[in-house]
């Protein structure tokens, strides 16, 4: 009762503010939304790199992560028992498209993976069913990589998210997460056609692209002339979310893996160091998404056109 009272008081306080932070996605049960988006993004990236580098463990991990992401999304919904209704509005809704993408991916990946891991399965790896599954999983993977960014870009109420760069940022985050997950499987002893060195080089390249896109997005928000977008940037760097950004994203997600990689240039990294690098990178990505989502501030209702003397 006290928690709901506090939530009500918070809402009343927020409604009186010019720049009201969004609390639906990211706070309370909203954390499942962030977890779902993060995990599903990593799953799509992992599937891509596991296919490219012939990693069976990577494919299995991607499938498991996508399943977990689906569960996290369901845990967030107010009425999870109605989840199947989300297939209806695929024509205009990015959430609906994401749901279809995830369903396609899970169904396709299952068809593709079963003969790969179960030799006695009723259909083989070269069968039509496996081929159809393979195609479905690739379509689903592409949707999963892109849809999250578009969900945020379509949010007209939150100027910080309403940026054309957001989808691109989410796609490169999915790629970075995928490489980190593949590194983790290699560290745990799984086979892959790519060497650790190649994966690390790829990780560094994608990380550089992430940094460029992120800086461009921040620059766009700062120069957009929108007070809500500027407040979001302030909250991210010097406000209520700064701790998550500096400790989670910058220190854990960038400095720690970069330092480990630097150390790996002189001496080959131990498997535990590779695992630590991959986990730190993935956790950094989580905190990045968490802080960007939490930094969302609603467009102020009062505008220049509203009554002025």
């Amino acid at each position: 009762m006290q928690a709901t009272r506090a939530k009500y008081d918070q809402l009343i306080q927020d409604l009186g503010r010019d720049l009201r932070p969004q609390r639906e996605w990211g706070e309370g049960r909203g954390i499942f939304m962030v977890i779902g988006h993060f995990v599903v993004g990593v799953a799509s990236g992992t599937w891509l790199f596991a296919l490219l580098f012939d990693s069976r463990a990577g494919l299995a991990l991607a499938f498991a992560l996508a399943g977990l992401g689906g569960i996290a999304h369901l845990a967030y919904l107010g009425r999870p028992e109605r989840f199947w209704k989300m297939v209806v509005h695929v024509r205009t809704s990015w959430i609906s498209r994401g749901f279809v993408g995830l369903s396609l991916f899970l169904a396709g990946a299952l068809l593709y993976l079963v003969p790969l891991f179960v030799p006695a399965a009723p259909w083989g790896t070269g069968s039509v069913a496996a081929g159809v599954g393979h195609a479905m999983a690739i379509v689903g993977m592409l949707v999963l990589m892109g849809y999250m960014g578009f969900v945020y870009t379509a949010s007209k109420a939150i100027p910080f998210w309403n940026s054309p760069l957001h989808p691109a940022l989410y796609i490169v985050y999915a790629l970075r997460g995928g490489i980190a997950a593949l590194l983790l499987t290699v560290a745990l002893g799984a086979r892959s056609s790519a060497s650790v060195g190649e994966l690390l080089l790829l990780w560094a390249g994608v990380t550089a692209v992430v940094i460029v896109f992120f800086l461009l997005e921040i620059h766009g928000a700062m120069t957009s002339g929108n007070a809500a977008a500027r407040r979001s940037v302030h909250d991210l760097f010097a406000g209520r979310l700064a701790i998550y950004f500096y400790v989670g994203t910058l220190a854990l997600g960038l400095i720690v893996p970069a330092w480990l990689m630097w150390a790996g240039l002189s001496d080959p990294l131990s498997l535990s160091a590779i695992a630590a690098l991959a986990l730190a990178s993935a956790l950094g990505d989580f905190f990045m998404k968490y802080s960007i989502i939490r930094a969302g501030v609603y467009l102020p209702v009062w505008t220049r056109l509203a009554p002025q003397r």
Partner: protein
Amino acid sequence: MRRGMVIDLKRCIGCYACQLSCKAEHGTPPGVFYARVLKKEEGQYPSVRQLFLPVLCNHCEEPPCVDACPTGASFKCEDGIVDIDPEKCVGCRACMMACPYSNRYYNDGPQHYFAQGATVYEQVRGARHQTDVVMKCNFCRDRVRAGRDPACVENCPTVARHFGDLDDPTSEVSRLIKERSGFPLHPEAGTKPSVYYLPP
């Protein structure tokens, strides 16, 4: 037909009658406000004035909430009213993020105002609302269909609110918008709101 509302900011005295009458009409739980009044102070002593901005769902001609909804729970009627079918809502809150006017509310709080539990009034009025879904103003659709004005319009003591057909150039709302340079909120969002304001 496109139903719309005009709010005369010169007449609004910030009495909150619209907010209260809306609460009474719909029996919305705590944390859900179909109609609100925003208050702002302007200027410096001794030249100070208080401004009031009553807000509600703008029933946009191109509603971004309807596009964002994955289930079709948010929908637009033939008369332009935007409403929610609670039976279809999954509570994903994408519509809340899409609405540039922040006039949608998620109903997951307590369904009564007092610690002792729901009053008889709350039990009766609140029974029609589902929990864990999004709620919003529907221009009092049932009243409008019965030929009456929305509760906030009927109960405004200063007659600051007017309701009518925006598509009819001879209607009172169209005339007021034309004669007194009515403006919508956030026209740059491209949503074509059906709620207009007359300057103070």
